[in-house]
């Protein structure tokens, strides 16, 4: 599973796009330009990108309330996403979904989800469709450490094993579920081992290391495509920020947060690896940073200027047809 330069550049571009996107969303939210509440993904970029670099548009992912990174990694257009988060009519969901419901079925992104544990059963269904229709595509669901305790997730894992479906249960252990620690909420303190007991291969990897995630998920995807059934992967990577923008984060110490942002930054780690290995140059990476910066700038500016939906949009899109 060696990655060539283009793929490495793509991986970095995606991670940087997520980082820049979230930093901009944070800033615009603080300025009051974004309605509702938003859950940011920065700090966890290697997990989404490491996973999704193994997938095509034919493959499906189901996501969470913290879905921006998953969407970007799966190829959803950041401009359409930003417009959605701003609640504008030309957002990817017409302004009807918002941050927690971004979906783009053409890209195989079957939905962020504001219900913790909502996505895994859906991913199992997407995998069932692939298998039934004789495709070799797979489905992957993202679930947090907190969400790993939701009954729907356990049911989904068991059903996937019983039906031997091509699905990957990716658990993103970022240390917290809202203001509660993983070590408290997961009784066994080992999400991967608990998943393994359902009868599937399960591994725990460093979520800061793009390459570790890419390989672990790659193996799971290969198994799935080969018809060998589901797998679970647990990635460990703390979120930089709070549960949502505005969370005072009293459950974290400032030292821990500073340490995390300094020493546990997946982008820094990626840059170090690829430059030291001579795979990419600092110049190439910096160029991408600038490119992404202007892309995000453009997205936010156009989002701020885009029109809102109107009364005519309120009652459309409920049914395909309703007598």
């Amino acid at each position, binding site marked *: 599973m060696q990655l060539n330069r283009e793929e490495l550049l793509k991986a970095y571009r995606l991670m940087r796009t997520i980082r820049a996107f979230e930093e901009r969303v944070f800033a615009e939210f603080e300025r009051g330009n974004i309605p509702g509440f938003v859950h940011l993904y920065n700090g966890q970029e290697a997990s989404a990108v490491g996973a999704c670099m193994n997938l095509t548009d034919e493959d499906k992912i189901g996501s969470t309330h913290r879905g921006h990174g998953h969407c970007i990694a799966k190829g959803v257009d950041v401009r359409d996403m930003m417009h959605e988060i701003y609640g504008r009519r030309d957002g990817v969901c017409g302004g009807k979904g918002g941050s927690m419901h971004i979906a783009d079925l053409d890209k195989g992104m079957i939905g962020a989800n504001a219900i913790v544990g909502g996505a895994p059963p859906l991913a199992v269904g997407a995998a069932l469709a692939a298998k039934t229709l004789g495709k070799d595509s797979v489905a992957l669901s993202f679930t947090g450490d907190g969400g790993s305790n939701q009954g*729907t997730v356990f049911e989904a894992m068991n*059903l996937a094993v019983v039906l031997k479906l091509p699905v990957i249960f990716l658990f993103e252990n970022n240390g917290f579920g809202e203001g509660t620690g993983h070590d408290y909420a997961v009784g066994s303190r080992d999400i991967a081992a608990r998943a393994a007991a359902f009868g599937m291969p399960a591994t725990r990897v460093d979520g800061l290391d793009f390459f570790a995630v890419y390989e672990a998920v790659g193996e799971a995807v290969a198994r799935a495509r080969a018809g060998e059934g589901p797998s679970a992967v647990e990635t460990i990577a703390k979120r930089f920020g709070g549960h949502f923008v505005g969370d005072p984060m009293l459950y974290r110490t400032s030292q821990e947060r500073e340490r995390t942002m300094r020493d546990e930054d997946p982008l820094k780690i990626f840059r170090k690896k690829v430059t030291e290995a001579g795979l990419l140059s600092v110049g190439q990476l910096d160029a991408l940073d600038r490119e992404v910066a202007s892309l995000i700038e453009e997205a936010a500016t156009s989002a701020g200027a885009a029109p809102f939906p109107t009364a005519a949009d309120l009652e459309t899109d409920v049914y395909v047809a309703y007598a």
Partner: protein
Amino acid sequence: MPQKSYRQALNEALRHEMRRDPRVILIGEDIAGGAGCEGEEDAYGGVLGVTKGLVGEFGRARVIDTPISESAIMGAAAGAAISGLRPVADLMFVDFLGVCFDQIFNQAAKFRYMFGGKAVTPMVMRAMIGGGFRAGGQHSQTLHPMLTMVPGLKVVMPSNPYDAKGLLIQAIRDDDPVMFLEHKAMYDMVGEVPDEAYAIPFGEARITRTGKDVTVVAFSLMVERSNQAADLLKKEGILVEVVDPRTTSPLDLDSILESVEMTGRLVVVDESPPRCSLAADISAQVAEHGFDDLTAPIVTVTCPHTPSPFSPALEDLYMPSVERIADAIRKVAKK
């Protein structure tokens, strides 16, 4: 026309559509049965036999038995529906809604709207409803009001074998999530059912009795009981019109209003506790849009505000009976 049971009509509908469209699959608990057992395949065919024989023709790849995990079943059906299949998921007893409702009302039913009209979620959820089986508080409910309430969901309540087949075929061909509610007490009800496939459009009421004095609206098992009440009252000179809307969402309000325009009197029969019931829903819509036609209070006939009792002595009093329906009609007719 050939005579068939409600059960057989449903089975035919599933068979027709599975033959017609390879994307149609069935998923649920023991819809075939015998998985992982020493005995026969298709040992169950659904707890009341509706899916019997289908695994034989279509195989386990399309008639999928599952563990007892309703959230995973409904979620898998929803996820498969937005990924190219047209699943028919079996919830068995509608009473099990409580362990999987999120996948129905927050997921499947909301996809299209939340995703800005891009999602199409063609799935059917079949469930058994209703009382009379002495099945106790957790196996005798109807719960259709909780489902009718949900934007994005369609709800079907067939009252006879002919409708059962035509409405199930429509449900499977429909591109929106459909909750298809089958009354346990009707599976052995026999009626004329054509052999060929036919679809009955949603939102079109059927008038099962015509009369100028009082309008009765009823669904599912209550239609037959309302018909009996109507026949009974004819002898007393009260002419009753019975309207069976067949689907609660969409609801054919026009047919109800038309009838009330003529009769000026409305009784709504609903096998459900009274609060926020379908009876209340229809009464309120008429009280708002047909008020000027009303010459008497709108009377609702429902179950009491209690769980379903087990004892036959109590359950018979719990469900709306022909007598209670007749009394309600007499009451408004007098006015």
